[in-house]
């Protein structure tokens, strides 16, 4: 991969957010390239969720810029998008897997409808095709086709998260945000989800920004890790480098507190 001359998919410079006087996150800069998985780790209140919301343009930054390279090859400042463009981006080229499936799914709509929504939003008007695509995606996230007409109310936590994954990936996005997607799940259920996400990410060449407090999740999924503390990125590097040769005192504390062996 002679890719050093490639352009980044997402380019973040000096991103800063204050809530009044309180700092959300400060001066974050990085580039994300196609197919890269970046984990943002840190404790609650470290600013990682604020950063994710800023990146996904759900929150307006106090200063700094997020630029994204669109499918047409043009890199645009996300702050300059109008609402229609932003929404279109969010449900075509991007995905967002939420910690709480109830925020990421339509709980009153069937699994098939949840997966099909993005397709219909961008103009799909053939019921049979939409349903076939939904069934295919349910299969890919290991949800029994017999559940296609059930609402997520009756789904387990793991199934709901997998349904969220399907709902987000159905349009073949290039960048997916994930906010603690495995928290609250049993360990065995976590493993299944992680494995699924990992293989989908590789097969689809997705870029992913995943926020997690779980360093094991970061190690399994990510290429790079950014460690946040009190709003600042204090360490950033290859995933195994940050975990196996942590430089900062705080990172060493995190690693030694969480990882066994």
């Amino acid at each position, binding site marked *: 991969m002679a890719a050093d001359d490639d352009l980044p998919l997402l380019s973040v410079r000096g991103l800063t957010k204050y809530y009044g006087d309180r700092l959300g996150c400060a001066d974050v800069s990085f580039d994300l390239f196609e197919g890269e998985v970046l984990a943002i780790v840190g404790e609650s209140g470290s600013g990682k969720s604020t950063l994710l919301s800023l990146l996904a343009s759900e929150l307006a930054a106090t200063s700094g810029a997020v630029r994204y390279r669109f499918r047409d090859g043009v890199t645009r400042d996300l702050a300059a998008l109008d609402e229609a463009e932003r929404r279109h981006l969010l449900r075509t080229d991007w995905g967002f897997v939420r910690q709480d499936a109830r925020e990421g799914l339509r709980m*009153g709509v*069937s699994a098939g409808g949840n997966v*099909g*929504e993005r397709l*219909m*939003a961008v103009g799909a*008007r053939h*019921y049979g095709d939409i349903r076939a695509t939904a069934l295919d995606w349910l299969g890919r996230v290991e949800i029994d086709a017999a559940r296609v007409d059930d609402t997520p109310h009756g789904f387990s936590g793991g199934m709901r998260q997998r349904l969220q994954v399907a709902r987000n990936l159905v349009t073949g996005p290039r960048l997916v945000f994930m906010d603690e997607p495995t928290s609250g799940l049993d360990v065995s259920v976590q493993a299944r989800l992680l494995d699924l996400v990992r293989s989908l990410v590789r097969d689809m060449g997705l870029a992913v920004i995943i926020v997690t407090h779980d360093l094991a999740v970061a190690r399994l999924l990510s290429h790079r890790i950014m460690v946040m503390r009190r709003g600042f990125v204090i360490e950033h590097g290859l995933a195994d480098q940050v975990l196996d040769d942590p430089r900062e005192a705080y990172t060493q504390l995190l690693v030694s507190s969480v990882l066994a062996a």
Partner: protein
Amino acid sequence: MSTTGYNFAYLDEQTKRMIRRAILKAIAIPGYQVPFASREMPMPYGWGTGGVQVTAAIIGHDDVLKVIDQGSDDTTNAVSIRKFFAKTAGVATTTRTREATIIQTRHRIPEAPLREGQIIVYQVPIPEPLRFLEPRETETRRLHALNDYGLMHVKLYEDIARHGHIATTYAYPVQVAGRYVMDPSPIPKFDNPKMHMSPALQLFGAGREKRIYAVPPHTPVKSLDFDDHPFAVQHFDKPCALCGAERVYLDEVVLDDRGGRMFVCSDTDYCEERRAQGHAGAMAPDGARAQPGEAGHGR
């Protein structure tokens, strides 16, 4: 004025002006829901307070008013609204579709084609077609503004997934002039095609929800559907039992407690007119003859 102490057509002129402004805006932006300052009316919500305010704002001395409820001119709701305007505006009323200049309706569009110069005023309980899936008003407004109607198809998708076909049979969503998605009020989807390119002006009033919207004459109105589940109107196996009409919307009438029933025109005026012309259905009584239309009030 037939009732002293009240302004013509009950509402004061300032209120009518406000409502007319909302109507003009609604006509200018077909299918768009215009907020208006709905007034308290001397009838409960759900009895057509939105439609009555629209009618009151547009009616003049020379108008001839017809009011129907579920196609019928003689139900309580239709009768009381007709009397209301006969009393407060002193206008002529009729049951004849072709004689009316203003038709206020709950749940039907008459079978007789509307013509240029007529205005049909729909009573609307819930104007927001997206409400089923999106309870937040701020969000539904944004969806309309952004022409973002994927959700509407999610609703139809759910219908087909659950029932094998689009089971929505009334208040079937339409797209007006290729832009705004609109709830046509709880008319049967049978009536949806009548809205398309209609020469009449169509006004919609929702009193409790404080919204007015409109379809100007000769405006395309498309019922939403899927390519492989195209929109289709209800089909009735038999003609009207009284007048023999086909391709009209029929109501089921229970005749006795032994399962006896018949299907008759929901549009009573249409049925009467056909019978007066000598048409007879399978269950028409011998020597059936048309009932005369209800005499106009006022003047």
